[in-house]
């Protein structure tokens, strides 16, 4: 009878130790998952904020006239330049603070070479030509037009804005958007 009681007590101890081991392992794993998720949630929040900064900076730069953007490049002294300091009240920099978070916000302006090919024009002389009647019109090819700073001045500026959350617990991705502003004034 005493032997049986001892045996039962031994089994209970091993069982409790094993159960405790499993419980500790599961608890630590759960803590790890929660910690990973928390870091992910914080990173997600920063990413959403980074996208909002990206939209804001792109909209501000795209609302500027071609001449203003071009003058920034003239001041910088090149056809392409990455700005990491404020321009015209648009906040840029390596450490732009929004509340508790920090972002690297850069804007690259580039005089973009483009070419329009396959251009046409009305062919003259055309004795049958009547301005209001397309049936009388004759078309002919005309030379392509390049706006590359050589044949013609640049007329397009490419805007690239990149935003990257910095100083976080994880290395987060960079967000980039590209757009173009044309010279519609001249």
């Amino acid at each position, binding site marked *: *009878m005493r032997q*049986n009681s001892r045996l*039962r007590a031994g*089994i*209970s101890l091993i*069982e409790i130790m*094993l*159960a*405790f081991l*499993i*419980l500790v*392992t*599961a*608890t630590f*794993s*759960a803590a790890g*998952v*929660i910690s*990973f*998720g928390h870091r992910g*949630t914080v990173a*997600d929040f920063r990413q959403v904020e980074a*996208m909002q900064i*990206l*939209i804001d900076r792109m909209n501000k730069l*795209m609302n500027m006239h071609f001449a203003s953007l071009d003058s920034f490049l003239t001041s910088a002294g090149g056809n392409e330049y990455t700005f990491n300091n404020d321009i015209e009240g648009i906040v840029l920099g390596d450490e732009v603070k929004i509340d508790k978070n920090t972002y690297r916000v850069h804007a690259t302006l*580039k005089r*973009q*070479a*483009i070419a*329009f*090919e*396959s*251009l*046409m*024009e*009305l062919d003259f002389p055309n004795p*049958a030509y009547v301005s209001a*009647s*397309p*049936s*009388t*019109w*004759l*078309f002919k090819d005309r030379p392509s*037009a390049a706006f590359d700073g050589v044949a013609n001045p640049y*007329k*397009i500026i*490419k*805007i690239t804005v990149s935003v990257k959350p910095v100083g976080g617990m994880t290395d987060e991705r960079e*967000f*980039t*958007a*590209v*757009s*173009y*502003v*044309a*010279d*519609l004034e001249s």
Partner: protein
Amino acid sequence: MNSHDKMQVSGNERADETVKYGDNSRRNGMALVIVLAFSSILLVLGVVYLRTFSQSTHISGLQLDQIQAEFFARGMQNIATFKIKRFPDFFLRAYRYHVYQNRVNAGDTDVSPPSNPFPNPSPFQKFTGAYPGRTNDLLQHMHPTEDSTLGFSTPLKVATWSTSFNLRSAEDFNRAFIEIDVYVQMEGRDLVSQYRMSLDASQTRKLPGS
């Protein structure tokens, strides 16, 4: 005491213990079962949490694609507008000729036949840059080699883009609404997004000497 008697005695002792301590054999392993059940619940919760988290990361990737596509499309609309402003006569005549050609091809008897055969590709196709055999046009997706040479769309990952023009006329084409549609498909996505811009345009004739 023979062996049968010993077994009888042993059986009686167990029955006495059961009465005294209860049926402990049924409790053996209960702690393990409870802990395993608890661990399983934790595991399920952890998997659900991670899945939710990974889905939200995927959504932010889609949002970024949409933002990139929209800004790119707005830029292409600016370039298309620049082309119209730079070559207004070509655009307007090519569009009117395109409408006229469509009416003739549809058998409209109200319009007179062309004095010369219709050119192929048509002037309007040449304006838009979208016609068979042309694989490299600024407004209709550039060839990757030229794109990388000019650094036009980099660092964006745009799979393809195209531009279409429409002219809604009023006052016999003296006043019009120009619609520029840009279609953008980002790399790795099936969705083709359409972005429309409308311009209210009027035509004025420049008199000689003015």
